[in-house]
Structures are given as C-alpha cells and as structure tokens.
C-alpha cells in the first residue's frame, strides 16, 4: 500500500495529523510524521524527513503532505538524497484534508497516482453544509 509522510514546521502539528489520519487508515497504511527542526523549534529537518521516508518506503510509493513554504524545499532535498529509485511524490494538497483523503484512498489499495489525485480533491472539500 501507499505510505504517507506528514511534514510540518510544527512537530505537534505533524504528529496530530498523523494521529487524526491513522484513525481512518487501515493498519496496512504506514503514516509517519516529521515536524519541527532537530532541536524542536519551528522549521523542518531534512534529516528526519529522509529517515522517515526510508522507514516507510513501500513498493507502491509514498505521498508526502506538507504545510507550506520551505517544507517543500526540504522534502525535495530529502528525496534527492534518497536517489533516483525512490518512489516518492509531494502533494500540493491542503495538509490535513489532503492527508485524510489520501489515507482513505491508500487504505483502499489505490496506486500512488490515485492517492495523489484523492489528496488534491481536498481543495474542494465542503465542510459546511447549508
């Protein structure tokens, strides 16, 4: 199954998204979080991102969801460090909502393409009904 990595500037935020999405992902979906700098400040740690990507690597691939800003640069550096074989994609989707939909999709044994597409649907998610 596709794995998910949650990257945020805040360690709490990333861990919370993992907790929230793990509740609906089956046991088969590996979800990890990499938030904050190595010394616990707000920021991103390329080392921890890379370690997490190695740990949840799956033949089906990994989708990475990020908060914003430099998180993308950090993830891109980590992916490059893993080498050309790494099957990893960064999502442009909203972090929480995208991770939620991606978790549901991955749990249904969807491909990396399908999981990435599901995450992007989060942009149109309607929360408030009238």
């Amino acid at each position, binding site marked *: 199954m596709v794995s998910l990595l949650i990257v945020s500037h805040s360690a709490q935020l990333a861990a919370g998204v993992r907790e929230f999405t793990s509740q609906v992902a089956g046991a088969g979906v590996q979800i990890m979080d990499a938030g904050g*700098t*190595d*010394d616990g*400040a*707000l*920021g*991103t*740690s*390329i*080392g921890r991102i890379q370690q997490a990507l190695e740990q949840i690597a799956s033949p089906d691939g990994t989708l990475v969801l990020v908060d*914003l*800003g*430099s998180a993308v*640069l*950090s993830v*891109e*550096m980590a992916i490059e460090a893993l080498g050309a074989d790494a099957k990893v994609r960064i999502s442009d989707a909203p972090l929480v909502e995208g991770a939620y939909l991606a978790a549901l999709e991955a749990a249904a044994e969807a491909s990396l393409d399908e999981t990435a597409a599901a995450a992007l649907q989060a942009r149109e998610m309607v929360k408030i009904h009238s």
Partner: protein
Amino acid sequence: MRITAEHVIKFIEGVAARIKEHRDELVQLDQPIGDSDHGVNMDRGFTTVLDKLPTVADKDIGTILKTVGMTLVSTVGGASGPLYGTAFIRAGMALADRYELTPAEVVAALEAALEGIQARGKAQRGEKTMIDAIAPGIDVLKEAQASGEDFHAAMRRSVAAVEAGMKATIPMLATKGRASYLGQRSIGHQDPGATSAFYMAQVMLETIEGIEE
C-alpha cells in the same frame, strides 16, 4: 592572486561571525514579511558549520564548501537552509579537488552557487528574494572579468551592486517564499535573505581585500 583553502576557511568563519552579529536584525527583517526566524536559522546553521570546519580544514576547497553546504542543509530549518546549502554544495562541486583558486574560478563557483539557488527555489530576479541581491553582484564580476578589471576593484563594485540589489527588494512584491503569502503587504520591506546575502558578500570582499592582487 593566490586564493587558498585557508582564505576560504577565513571567509566561512567571517560569515559565521557577521551573521551572529546581525542575528537580531535578520530576525527583525523577517518579522513583517516572514516568520521572524531568518537570523536564528542562519546563526544556528553557521554555528554548527564552525563546529564542523576543523574536520575539513586540511581538505580541498571543494570538500570544505560542500561540508558547509551540507551542514546548512541539515541544520538551518528554514528555506534559507536548502537554498544557501545548495549554493555552497554547488560551489564546492565546481571547485572539487582545488587547493588554490584564481579569481575566475571564484566567479565560476559563485555562478554555480546562484544556479543552485535558482534550481532549488524556482525563483527568478524580481521576486523579492536573496537572488535579487546575489545576481547583480555576479553580473558585475562577469563584466569585470571580460573587461580585465582587477579583482579587488571588481569585488568592491560587486558588493556595491549586491547592496543596491538588497535595497531594491524593498519596493518589490514577493512572489516566492513565505513573504509571497502576504501579497501586496509584502511591499515596503527589505528581504531578510537578500540582507544575509549582502553580509556574506561583504565578508567575501574583506577576505579578498586581505589577499595581494
């Protein structure tokens, strides 16, 4: 002009000191258009670089610069980490196995560094980033090289161009990086990354000025 690995190390140490000196100013510049951490990020990175430097002090210039870059990448924690990190790594790759440099090699390494920043951050000139300070400085060095100007003089003009580029970010609208989320409100503030780039350029000039032409 003989630019040695020792000069390169002196330059790095100088940058670390200059950044520490301007830490709070870089934080303050990052407040209105960012997240108030650029000074903290850069100081965190270069403090670790200082710890690492002794382990590569006897190595070639390429190795020294790559080590600096990799340290920045893994410790800075903000956009400036991957950006300056890639810059130093690319410069190091351009100078692999070299223990002494000509001015032309310095300019080539700076060009490689800028290309690295652009490849990483996907920004062009005019987007209110460090590129707006760095690129004009490299333009001057390339011109000067073509016209045969001496390197000390070229460096002085180059740093003046970097300073002008830094100030030119004030009226710019940010379209990359965190400041871009502010839209029109990013106008009227000097870019912190352009400012740290200017301080690095200053230290580079001072290092070069300490070497006989």
